[in-house]
């Protein structure tokens, strides 16, 4: 009987069982109204985000991050990269608020990343979009198509969407981008919101460490962040 069984367990399963990835896009407002304290807080938050992710071994290897900023245009500050390679950008404020185009760009980036996962047979969790703004979009001509595509993606369970308004952000406008127009929107002071990035990285870590055995829930929200 014994000669039919392996002598040890080492060779019974492959060395590398495929890990599951999660793609996360951060859409950050760098319009003129973000000048001063808000942009400094944003830059610190992006650095905290990277530091928190780097401390989690699983997230370092499985979370893929992309930073897209928007003002009068849309800029991909950090194209999709592994969390282990993430370097926080230094952003400066100025211009209008092309939030709609930024959302469209974020959705495109996620689709491309998912296609890459599929082509290499990499299993992945539902991607995340985190949006931060202190105002409301000025590119209103893109609003209808943006809401349509975003809501299709959310309702079709293609993406998780987390909008956050700081300072004088138009919360009602942000809510109109969520499912049924009344979904969750985070709110924080324009002087103290970098903790949201720590929350974000912690939630991503939770996702990458999940086994699929139970539902994945984001981490608990820090006290300075309100849920509306």
């Amino acid at each position: 009987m014994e000669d039919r069984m392996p002598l040890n367990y080492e060779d019974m399963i492959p060395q590398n069982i495929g890990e599951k990835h999660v793609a996360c896009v951060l859409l950050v407002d760098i319009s003129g109204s973000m000048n001063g304290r808000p942009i400094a807080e944003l830059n610190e938050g992006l650095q905290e985000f990277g530091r928190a992710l780097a401390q989690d071994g699983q997230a370092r290897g499985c979370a893929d991050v992309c930073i897209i900023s928007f003002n009068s245009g849309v800029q991909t500050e950090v194209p999709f990269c592994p969390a282990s390679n993430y370097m926080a950008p230094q952003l400066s404020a100025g211009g209008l608020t092309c939030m709609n185009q930024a959302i469209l760009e974020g959705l495109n980036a996620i689709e491309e990343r998912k296609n890459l996962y599929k082509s290499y047979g990499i299993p992945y969790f539902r991607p995340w979009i985190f949006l931060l703004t202190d105002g409301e979009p000025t590119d209103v001509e893109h609003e209808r198509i943006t809401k349509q595509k975003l809501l299709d993606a959310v309702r079709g369970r293609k993406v998780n969407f987390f909008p956050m308004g700081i300072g004088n952000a138009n919360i009602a406008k942000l809510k109109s981008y969520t499912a049924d127009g009344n979904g969750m929107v985070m709110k924080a002071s324009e002087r103290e919101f970098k903790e949201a990035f720590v929350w974000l990285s912690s939630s991503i870590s939770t996702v990458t460490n999940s086994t699929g055995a139970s539902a994945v829930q984001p981490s608990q929200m820090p006290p300075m962040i309100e849920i509306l």
Partner: protein
Amino acid sequence: MVRKEYSSKRTYPQDLLRNLPPKQEGKSERNADFSAFALSLQGASHVSTQVPCQDYSDIRILNGCGVVIGGIADGVGSCPLSHWGAYIAVCEALDYVEERIRSHEAALGDEALYEVLNGAFKHAERMVAQAADAASQAVRNLQSTLTVALYDGSNLYCCHVGDDGVVAQQQNGIVKLATNRLKGEEASSVYPLQTGRWEITKVRNAVAGFVMATDGVLDAFAMMYPDYNNINYSNRIYYPFMEPALYGMTDKKVPDAAKKTLDFYRKYLESPGYRGKVTDDLTFVAVTSPAVLEKSVHPEFSVDTWNAIEREHERKKAEALGYSIPQGSSVLEALPDTVPEYPVRERAAEPVMSSVRRRDGLPSAREQTKKKSDRKSPNDRTFLLLIATGILLAVLIAVLAFFGLRYFRQHDKAGETGSLNEEWLKKETEIQTMTDAENSSKIGNLLKASDSDVIRETEEELTKFPESK
């Protein structure tokens, strides 16, 4: 033949929240033809969170029927009573299949077994819904996957929904997935039994043995990623994992070989080495016909070749995703110059009676159409025969009408009818005379001339007749 409606003989507690279903802590069976075991273990993550094992499994050798059946189910993680859903689904599905086979209501042909497996899944879905209703729970709280396999020593049939799977070892030495991974786009999504989207597959070639596993085990040895560089090694199945499960049960000198193999896998799946990599619930079932397995081709597999291909895959993946590979990592080792070709390249299961099903388990319209077009039913043959007969009759009537009309018009025309008839009769007589007296070539020429004359005259008659009125 009117089939008796099947009704479950099981009862379930009304308070599902306060009660737990029986566990499958290990079951092995063996008779002269088959050897099998089933095992379900609570995953490390559930041990730490005190969530019951949401997997369930069972195997039954149907003595006297020449068949062994197995069932596994994995409760959906976010559903609080999915441990009950998994238990009820497996028990009810296997009860149904067993009853239908033992009652000999149908011969074990493809069509009959399709109906049995389809019926089993419909019954299981119904019973889970009833149990939920009786406990005043929403059905979604009991969602689970379900996979049932039926094996007669050569043929393997599977009915399946979810991300579990069956891996078959064919008698020709090929190892392959016998089911498709039915899940959504994301890693954590799955199609449960309640979607009604089960598939029925049959392995084309004769099978020597098979294993069934929920994703906690299946993901460890049945890779999901596609061919790489056109290299499909071992159909992406890491064979060393399942090899002991089948060959361990063939040892004739050991009367409880199935139990010993079960114990081996229990020990392995509970080991820190495995649990460090996989924290999900674990279910593993193995079934074989030892006599058949001994005579079958042993699959070829080289761990070195597998590892070399994996290293190359990892390297390419890292480059594409932007990951950096540490210097000196084994991933950077080059692929060998030659990679042995796997004997036969076979894709994963192609559903034989399958695809998206309606919620009531009945075939979709597309399947019904395909089934009808594939099958040559007696009704189709009769219909075609009737059409052909109708066409022939129509042609015959047309010919008769043509000659009849010509004859009628010849008799009806005043003054000319007689002469025409006489000429026609004369020609007919000549034909007959010639037939008697001349050779075949002359007869042929005469007939052709007569035909031309007859046609021309008839046309002239038709044109003239109305004018004369």
